[in-house]
C-alpha cells in the first residue's frame, strides 16, 4: 500500500498545473480518487462530514445488482441448454453465461466511461461515478443476443444526449439505462423483438430441439397462450427466457432488500410501484373482459421486468420524484402504467421501460404540486396567525 502511495506521489506532479499532462488532470483525478479518498478537508461550514459519498452510494447499487446478475448469468446458460435439449449442471450453465455476458459488460463500461472521461477532460470537471451503475444496468436490461457494437453505440448516445448535455450525473431528465434501451428499441427494433432472449447460435454437436420457440412468458401471455407460461417456481427463481437481469424475482428482492436497508434505494418508491401494479392488476381482474385481464395479480409481479423496474429503475433518485409524498404518487403511477400498457397494448408486451420513462418526465410535475401544497400551508399560516394581525394593528 505504501508502494502505491509512493507511485502516486511520483506521478501526480505530471498531471498538476504546469505538469506535462496537466490537460488530463481530470482523468488522473478520477483514478486517484478511486484509489484514495483525497486529503481534502472542510474549509467552511460544518467541520466534520458524514462518511457517505457518491462513490460509496453507487458501489452499493452495484452490490445490490450482483444477485440478479449472477442468476442472469446462470439463466443464460440454462436457457441455452434447455433450447438444445440438454439438462446442464449449475456450473455448466454458469460458465456458458459468463462467457456470453462478460464481453457485454466490458463493452458497456468501456464505451460509456471513455465518453465520460472525454467530457470531463474537455469541460474540466470531476468524472462522475454515475456511469458505474448505468454501465451494468444497461447490460441487465438487454437480451444476451445483443451485438457488442449496438451496446457501445447506445451507451455513447446515452452519455452524450441523456446526461452530458444536461450537465452530467444528477442533471439528467430520464433514466440513462432506460434511455439506452429505448434508443435500441426505437432505432434498431430488430434486436429487441422476436425470439432474441435466448442465445440460440448453437455450438458444434448441439441442435435446437424441435418446436423450440424461446418466447418470453410475457409474449406467450400476449399471444393468449397463458397455459404455456413457466411454473410459478421457475418464474420466482428466474428460470425463463427474458433480458439478462429481469428474470429472477427472488434475486431482485434480495437486491431490493439491500437497497432498502442501506437506504440507498427508496423503499417508498419500490412499495408504491408494487401497490400500483397490484391495484391495476386487481382492477383488471374485477373487470375481466378477456383472458389477459384475468391473470392472477401475483403472476403480473413475477412476469417481465416488473420487479426489476420497481427495484432498480424507478428508484433512480435523480429521475424519480424528489419529495416524500411525490415518491408515493410517482411509484404508484408507474405500477399502474406498467400493467395498463402490458394488458391493453399488445404492441409492447413489456411496458416497464415506457412507464418509467414517462413518469421520469412527469416527476417534476408531481413534485411541483407537492411543493405548492407546502407553500399553501405557509400562506394559510400567515392569514391565520393572530399574533401577526395584532402586531400589524399596533404599528
Amino acid at each position, binding site marked *: 500500500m505504501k508502494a502505491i502511495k509512493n507511485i502516486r506521489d511520483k506521478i501526480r506532479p505530471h498531471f498538476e498545473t504546469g505538469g506535462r499532462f496537466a490537460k488530463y488532470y481530470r482523468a488522473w483525478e478520477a483514478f486517484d480518487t478511486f484509489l484514495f479518498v483525497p486529503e481534502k478537508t472542510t474549509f467552511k461550514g460544518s467541520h466534520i462530514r458524514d*462518511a457517505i459519498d457518491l462513490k460509496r452510494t453507487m458501489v452499493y447499487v452495484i452490490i445490490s445488482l450482483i444477485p440478479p446478475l449472477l442468476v442472469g448469468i446462470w439463466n443464460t446458460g440454462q436457457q441455452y441448454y434447455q433450447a438444445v435439449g440438454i439438462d446442464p449442471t449449475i456450473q455448466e450453465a454458469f460458465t456458458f453465461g459468463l462467457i456470453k455476458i462478460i464481453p457485454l459488460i466490458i463493452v458497456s463500461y468501456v464505451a460509456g466511461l471513455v465518453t465520460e472521461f472525454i467530457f470531463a477532460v474537455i469541460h474540466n470537471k470531476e468524472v462522475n461515478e454515475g456511469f458505474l451503475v448505468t454501465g451494468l444496468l444497461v447490460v441487465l436490461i438487454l437480451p444476451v443476443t445483443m451485438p457488442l457494437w449496438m451496446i457501445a453505440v447506445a451507451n455513447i448516445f446515452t452519455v452524450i444526449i441523456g446526461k452530458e448535455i444536461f450537465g452530467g450525473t444528477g442533471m439528467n431528465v430520464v433514466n440513462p439505462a432506460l434511455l439506452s434501451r429505448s434508443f435500441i428499441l426505437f432505432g434498431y427494433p430488430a434486436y429487441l423483438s422476436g425470439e432474441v432472449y435466448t442465445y440460440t447460435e448453437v455450438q458444434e454437436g448441439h441442435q435446437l430441439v424441435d418446436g423450440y420457440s424461446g418466447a418470453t412468458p410475457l409474449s406467450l401471455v400476449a399471444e393468449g397462450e397463458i397455459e404455456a407460461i413457466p411454473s410459478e417456481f421457475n418464474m420466482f427463481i428466474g428460470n425463463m427466457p427474458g433480458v439478462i437481469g429481469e428474470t429472477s424475482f427472488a434475486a431482485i428482492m434480495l437486491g431490493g432488500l439491500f437497497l432498502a436497508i442501506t437506504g440507498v434505494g427508496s423503499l417508498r418508491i419500490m412499495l408504491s410501484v408494487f401497490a400500483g401494479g397490484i391495484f391495476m392488476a386487481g382492477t383488471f381482474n374485477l373487470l375481466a373482459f378477456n383472458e389477459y385481464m384475468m391473470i392472477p395479480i401475483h403472476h403480473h409481479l413475477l412476469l417481465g421486468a416488473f420487479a426489476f423496474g420497481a427495484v432498480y429503475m424507478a428508484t433512480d433518485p435523480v429521475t424519480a420524484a424528489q419529495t416524500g409524498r411525490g415518491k408515493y404518487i410517482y411509484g404508484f403511477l408507474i405500477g399502474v402504467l406498467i400493467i395498463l400498457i402490458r394488458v391493453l397494448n399488445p404492441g409492447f408486451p413489456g411496458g416497464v421501460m415506457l412507464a418509467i420513462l414517462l413518469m421520469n418526465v412527469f416527476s417534476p410535475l408531481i413534485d411541483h404540486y407537492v411543493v405548492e401544497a407546502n407553500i399553501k400551508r405557509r400562506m394559510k399560516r400567515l392569514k391565520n396567525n393572530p399574533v401577526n394581525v395584532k402586531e400589524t394593528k399596533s404599528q
Partner: protein
Amino acid sequence: MSKTTINLKKGLDIPLKGKAEKILNTAERSDLYAVKPPDFYGIVPKMLVKEGEKVKAGSPLFYNKYDEKIIFTSPVSGKFKEIIRGEKRKILEVRIQADNNDDYVNFGGADPKSINREDIINKLLASGLWSTIRQRPYSVIANPDDKPKAIFVSAFDSAPLAPDFDFLINGQEEDFQTGLDVLSKLTKGTVHLSINEERTMRRTLTHAKNVEVHKFSGPHPAGNIGIQAHHIDPINSGDIVWYVDFQNVIMLGRLFKNGIYDGRKIIALTGSEVLRPRYWRIIQGASIKNLMKDNLTTEDTSSLRFISGNVLTGSKIYREGFVGFYDSQVTVIPEGNKPEFMGWLLPKPNKYSATRTLFSWLMPWKKYRLDTNLNGGNRAFVLTGIYEKVLPMDILPMQLIKAIMINDIGLMEKLGIYEVAPEDFALCEFICPSKTEIQSVIRDGLDLIQKEFS
C-alpha cells in the same frame, strides 16, 4: 408554562468523543483578548481607537459603518494592541493587551422593570452589549429601531458536545432572570424561553418569570432558535423576531445590576483531541492558549483543528486564537488531511454515517473521533429524501436550496427562507453525500433577500 411538550422526531445527535465533564476550572488569565468583527455577520468595522490607546472594559473599539449606533466595546481593561487583517485588508481581530486592573466603564445600574424601553436600548447600545441581540430573518445583529413580534431564548444547546446550560447558570440565576426582565421590556409580544424536557431541571429556568416557557424534546437541532420559533410562533414575511444566547442573557442581567460590561463567561472545552474536556471560566474574547497547555493529545498543531463553537457551525481558529463572541464552547478535533486507500469502499469501523451504509447504525452506543476530511468529492445533488430527515421543520430543504442556487427570490420566500439560518441547515450539510456547502448556500440566499429589500 405551556403544558405540552413539542416533540421533535427529526434531527441527529452525532455521537462524538470528548464531552466536557461537569468540572469547573478557572483558567490562568489570558493576557491577550480579541473582538473579532467576522463574528458579527454583515457589519463593517470602523475603528474608534488608535494603537496603544488605553481602554477600559466597556470602552468603544469600533462601530458598524452601516449603523453608527451599534458599537463594539472592549471586554477587558488594558491597551489596544493591534489589528490583524486578512485578505483585502479585512479586519479579522482587534486585539487588546489586558492589564489585569479590571477597570470598568460605568453605565449605571438600573432595575429594568422601572425604566422605559428607550433607556434600556440606549444603555445596551452604549455598553456594546446591543450586539448580543440578534434577529431573524437574516441572523444578524438586531436593528434598535425595529419592534420585534417576539424574543426567543433557548435554555439548552443540542449541538454536538454542547455545554449543559443548567451547569453554566449555577450561581448566576438572578442575573439570568434580570436579563429576561430586560428582554421582556423590548417587545410588546412575548419572550419565549425554550427548555429541554429531559435535561432542563433548574427551577430558575422551568419557572422563569416574565416569559413563556416551552418544553422541547428530540435530537439536534431542537436547541436552535429557528427550529423553536418555527414550532412556537413561525416567522412570516415581514415579521421580525429577536433572539439572545443563553450566557449573553446573563451578561445583560449583570449590566443592569452592576452597570458594567462584565464579560465573564464559562465555556466547555470539548472534542476528542482534548485530554481533559471540562468547563472553564474565561472572559469574553480570551485567547485559548492557556486552556490548551498540556491538554492536547498532540503538540503537532497542523494535525489538529481548533474550533470556536461546535463542529457544525463553529469557526476555525488557531492554537492561540480567541473565543468567539457568541460561543460557549471550544472544540478540538483531528484534521483529516491524509489520503485514505480505498476509503470509500472498505468498511471502516471508525467512520460514522447517519445513513445505514456503514456499520455505525448497528452500534448506536459507540462514540466517534471524527476528523475534518470531506470524505468525498463535490457533486450535483443525487440522493433525495435524506435532508428532510434532519430538519424538523415543515420546510422542503432540497427545494429551498435549489431555489437559492438559481437566485429565485420569489420561490425562496414561498419556501420559507425567512424562517431559516445557516445553522439550521448544518446537519443537512453534514449528511450531504454530494458534499454541498449548504450553510453557505443558505447564507447566500439570505444575503440576496436582504439586499433586495434594503
